[in-house]
């Protein structure tokens, strides 16, 4: 029986690869682990399938949650709190559609996304939260396996001693979305997109650009250590973080 299923999935993967082109990857599966109350009985998995260079499908298959209850789930970037992605407290990068468990406490949720939005440290883990209280997180799936090693590769775009960093503003995103800089660094946001954006922050109200049009830039020098989220106030989900470390 198991041999039948195995050869079936190989065939399915082959079909997927041949139809989507050389860039397509097989389905990756990440198990959810329970946080907090180990006896809650919640479980599930995240599967991610890349269909093309600009298209992926993430599917959450969840069981053992509270029945007939609204939940939300998000991809999170790797945070600074820990090398274990699920304990790293990173910012939300992309949300799954809000969902409601059935009477048996199960749910299947699908999200189509550009793989660039959740690649590497941007999609370090997926949290499932109760909608009524976002601090209740019954399940988390680590996507990044070696959080610390990968963070070292992708968040330091320049050595910590460099005092100038650049962030690209696109339509509608900031790149890199997670950046680490030493205190005293001047970050320059450069508009490489087509529509008006801005750079604002609730965490650091001093970050306040004018409306930025294609080709325009805005700079801010970070002096205080901490992790700060900034955003464009015109576009949903267009936010990013900068972690400022002591020199």
């Amino acid at each position, binding site marked *: 029986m198991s041999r039948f299923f195995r050869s079936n999935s190989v065939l399915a993967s082959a079909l997927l690869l041949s139809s989507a082109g050389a860039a397509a990857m097989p389905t990756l599966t990440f198990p959810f682990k329970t946080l907090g109350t180990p006896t809650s009985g919640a479980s599930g998995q995240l599967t991610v399938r890349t269909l093309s260079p600009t298209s992926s499908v993430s599917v959450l298959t969840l069981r053992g949650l509270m029945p007939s209850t*609204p939940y*939300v789930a998000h991809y999170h970037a790797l945070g600074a709190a820990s090398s274990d992605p699920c304990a790293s407290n990173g910012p939300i990068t992309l949300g799954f559609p809000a969902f*409601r468990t059935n009477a048996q406490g199960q749910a299947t949720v699908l999200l189509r996304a550009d793989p660039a939005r959740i690649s590497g440290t941007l999609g370090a883990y997926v949290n499932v939260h109760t909608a*009524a209280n976002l601090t209740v997180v019954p399940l988390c799936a680590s996507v990044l396996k070696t959080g610390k090693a990968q963070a070292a590769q992708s968040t330091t775009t320049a050595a910590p001693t460099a005092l100038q960093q650049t962030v690209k503003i696109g339509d509608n995103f900031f790149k890199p979305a997670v950046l680490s800089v030493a205190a005293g660094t001047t970050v320059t946001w450069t508009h490489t997109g087509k529509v*008006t954006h801005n750079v604002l922050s609730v965490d650091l109200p001093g970050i306040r650009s004018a409306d930025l049009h294609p080709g325009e830039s805005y700079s801010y020098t970070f002096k205080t250590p901490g992790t700060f989220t900034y*955003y464009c*106030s015109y*576009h949903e989900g267009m936010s990013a973080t900068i972690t400022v470390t002591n020199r």
Partner: protein
Amino acid sequence: MMGHKIVLLGIAGPLLLGSCALFGLPTTYLFKHNPNQADPSAGGNAVASVSGGMVSTTLSLSGLTPGKAYIAHYHAFGPDSSTNPCASNGPVTQGFPNFMADASGNASVTVKTDMAKIEGDNGAYLNVHYASDPSVVPICAPVKLAKG
């Protein structure tokens, strides 16, 4: 009209709806024109109703430019003001589907979302923007009058 209550012409309404879980009745927020020249006659309202942890919000707008594309969002309270949500420049917390004004300059659009995404300071105001240039914001409806 349609069996919903307009709560005290928008002054007490936003105060009551700081925590939208309290009332099962639909609540109406009124759009006011921002200090700019875009679509000078634009106006309308937003009606929000809660059911099972989800909020359904319908915008009914008039005075828009006929045939023009618009976008609308719920915004969180931003850093630039703690008493005037429409001037606070907060991040988008929930977007409406893109929509277009009809030949009479009217438009209606609805979005359904988790209450958690827009309750309290997370859903402090509603903006309607030009889709072609989101920095142009003809109208704004305050939802929560003060931060915190």
